């Protein structure tokens, strides 16, 4: 082929070479070497998502993450750095670093050039932020005011209102349904953040994914450096983290209508779905592509948008995690069409659960998912997401190599059976916000 290209392939594509080892400190490291560009992407995941926060402090995990960029404490002769000094330092390195919290994971991410001097400085700075956050109270008082104002603003937006009502109805008292409120913001203190950080951000629980122009030895050094300032513990002796209860199934259908002054009614419909380690994972992935995940060609898009022009956006998705995250169908439509659009969507879901996909639909789904597999891993950033998925969910190291085979083996009967096991259309929650009262 082309003789003059400078880039060379990321790897042979026959197999994606995932390297994995556990450090003496307990961190589990996953690496894909990608030498073409002199840069590295790193993600560190800890079992400290919002599911580990009590209802009365809803928001604590995400707030702890956001406060981690607001200053590091002085230690060992190194001066404290405030939020502005940190921002400048990262910009001066041409590197990016951040922390965030989802329902399950508390994550740090680092992107840097691999030029040794720059990368060394970036790792040292990241290590301070990971281990020695200052959690300055005046900054928290200010940020709390900002969050309260944002929350108030969010209440005026239909998409936020409908999502919140849906989440509370689907999850009940489970932590997946805890929503940040004025009251919970009022109860959170920097001492809570310190305690949360000290309890959960430890090398024993770290899963670290690395993609970039580093060898295994260099990656190991990098990870050691990132975690070096955390207290080192004997992982074998450390008590396990508390068990979080499962999401309770819904007992009956629920219809929630919320009056709202908006140009569109917003509709969300669904129920608790499944856990990421469920053996039905592949059948549900293929099935949802047909039902509402496959962009332009899904059944929901065909019936709601293409045939009837009722909505710009209509889709369905599962959100599997440590617990049964919600199955969600969402659409928006002119207020006077809300009942009609909801009816069409409900019928599509019920029919799919009852009958499963056709053989032709199953084949079309496989053609897209299998044929498009290279698009899931054609950049360092995408590879990192896949690697972190393997790391977090304890998937086999050849997960990506076997993925297309596993998808290819799914049958119509398996999809139908999996959907029948997971979805009960007669017991779903439906939230309709802003419909014209008929």
């Amino acid at each position, binding site marked *: 082929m082309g003789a003059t290209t400078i880039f060379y392939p990321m790897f042979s*594509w026959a197999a994606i070479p995932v390297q994995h080892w556990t450090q003496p400190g307990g961190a589990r490291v996953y690496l894909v070497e990608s030498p073409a560009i002199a840069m590295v992407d790193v993600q560190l995941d800890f079992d400290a998502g919002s599911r580990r926060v009590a209802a009365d402090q809803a928001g604590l995990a995400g707030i702890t993450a956001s406060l981690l960029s607001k200053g590091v404490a002085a230690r060992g002769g190194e001066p404290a750095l405030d939020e502005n000094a940190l921002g400048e330092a990262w910009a001066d390195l041409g590197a990016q670093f951040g922390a965030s919290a989802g329902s399950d994971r508390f994550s740090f991410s680092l992107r840097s050039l691999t030029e040794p001097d720059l990368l060394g400085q970036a790792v040292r700075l990241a290590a301070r932020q990971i281990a020695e956050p200052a959690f300055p109270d005046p900054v928290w008082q200010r940020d709390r005011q900002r969050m309260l104002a944002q929350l108030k603003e969010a209440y005026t937006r239909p998409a936020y209102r409908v999502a919140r009502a849906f989440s509370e109805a689907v999850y009940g008292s489970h932590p997946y349904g805890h929503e940040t409120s004025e009251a919970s913001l009022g109860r959170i203190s920097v001492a809570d953040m310190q305690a949360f950080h000290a309890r959960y951000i430890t090398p024993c629980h770290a899963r670290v994914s690395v993609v970039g122009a580093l060898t295994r030895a260099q990656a190991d050094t990098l990870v050691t450096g990132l975690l070096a300032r955390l207290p080192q513990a004997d992982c074998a002796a450390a008590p396990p983290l508390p068990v979080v209860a499962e999401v309770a199934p819904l007992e009956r259908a629920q219809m929630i209508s919320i*009056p709202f002054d908006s140009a569109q009614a917003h509709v969300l419909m669904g129920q608790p779905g499944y856990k990421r380690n469920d053996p039905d994972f592949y059948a549900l992935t293929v099935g949802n592509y047909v039902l509402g995940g496959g962009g332009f060609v899904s059944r929901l898009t065909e019936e709601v948008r293409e045939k009837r022009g009722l909505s710009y*956006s209509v*889709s369905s998705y599962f959100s599997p995690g440590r617990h049964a995250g919600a199955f969600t169908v969402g659409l928006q*439509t002119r*207020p006077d069409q809300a009942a009609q659009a909801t009816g069409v969507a409900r019928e599509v879901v019920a029919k799919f659960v009852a009958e499963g996909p056709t053989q032709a639909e199953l084949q079309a789904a496989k053609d897209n998912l299998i044929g498009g597999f290279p698009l899931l891993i*054609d950049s360092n950033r995408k590879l990192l997401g896949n690697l972190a998925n393997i790391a977090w969910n304890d998937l086999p190291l050849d997960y990506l190599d076997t993925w297309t085979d596993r998808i290819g083996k799914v049958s119509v009967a398996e999809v139908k059976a999996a959907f029948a096991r997971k979805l009960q259309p007669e017991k779903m929650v439906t939230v309709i916000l802003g419909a014209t009262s008929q």
Partner: protein
Amino acid sequence: MGSFIRFPALSRNTLLPLLSLLFGFFLASPAVAQTATPVTQFQLANGLTVIVKTDRRAPTAAHMLWVRVGSMDEVDGTTGVAHVLEHMMFKGTPSLKPGEFSRRVAALGGRENAFTSRDATGYYQQIPSNKLEEVMRLEADRFARNQWADEEFAKELEVVKEERRLRTEDSPRALLYEAANAITFVASPYRRPVVGWMSDLEAMTPDDARAFYRRWYVPANAAVVIAGDVDVAQVRRLAEKYYGAAVSRPVPPRKPRIEPVQTGLRRMDFKAPASQAYVSLSYKVPGLQSPADAAPGAGEAFNRDALALTVLAAVLDGYSGARLERALTQGDNRLADSAGASNGLIGRGPQVFVLDGVPAAGKTADQVADALRQQVALIAREGVSEAELKRVKTQWVASETYKLDALFSQARGLGAYWVNGLPLDTDERLISQLRSISSAEVQAVAGRYFSDDQLTLANLLPQPPDPGRAKRVPAAGLRH
């Protein structure tokens, strides 16, 4: 301001962030060991431009068709037609039924979407590279032979109206931008919303879209951009085979519609259901002009003011802890919950530099607006520090390396440069020129372009939502 895309699920990115093509979330290496592979450009006999960038890291490719027509090429009464046509391009050709285009691309393992902005309309597929021929055949077919029935148009128009409701009518700030834009520009077609006014959508006919298609979708007004694991000779052969079949026609003349010089402050209050106030200040500034010598390797020679304005925006708001954040959002008596700055830089029409902010509780929009102006005035008076200048340059240079990781954004960047008449090595030229931008130049543009005479100030006055109020939908008689 933003661009509108055909389908939401594939991308939550409603803006086509020209700035982030250059700057933004990818940062880069001063070591230049891995500069990008060269870009090849050629023209078919019918006038269509082809741009190819080979990148063999993975067996995938991005295939984009760019048409140099956007909402700025519309006329009053049919605003939004460029975007409606973009939707209709998925509705068939003599040999392809409605929806069949998407089914074929999906069967190839591809992902696809399309977008419309003020300057351009774009269609793209991301595919395994061994499927390139098939998507070129499909895209060339609809480019030359788009065809559909009136009933398809009627249904899709309803979808577009839902898109307008979703993105604009239920977003107080989007409504504010739309209204402010309409007074910032008087003669320039940039004054109209990309998605179109609702009454124009209500009145749009199938023949409006067909006429727009016939007029603007001509080979000499389009470019195909392909990036990825492809061979230039192979692309040339396929482009001639498929796109070469489109009949050559002249590109219609464009009226200049030059924006007259603004000679005084424009100020607008805008009421919408919201809780937070918001203020934006738009100043008319020069955009990037194509250099006199656009030959590859000819060097820099962009107008330096446009670049210095982008550096100014970065000094104000380019990183965490930059000037606006410090001055407006920190401290006991802080004025704002957030504050920002951005420079337009690239577009076929007139550009603006925008300062904006959300007042903190108990503070007013006027206080925020004054503080934003003062921050620019401070730089006009005292310049910026060498440390700030160096920091901004470091971020920009680093972003050039990070950009190499994202194939699709490279294709998008090349297409945007072509649409705007800029050379394909604009990235390299900008970096080269950026290195020599001085503090004095940043200081000078801060003084030159921020007079109130060039300002449009838009003020969002939040109104409590009223669940009891009548629905904001048109009367039944206005609907089709």
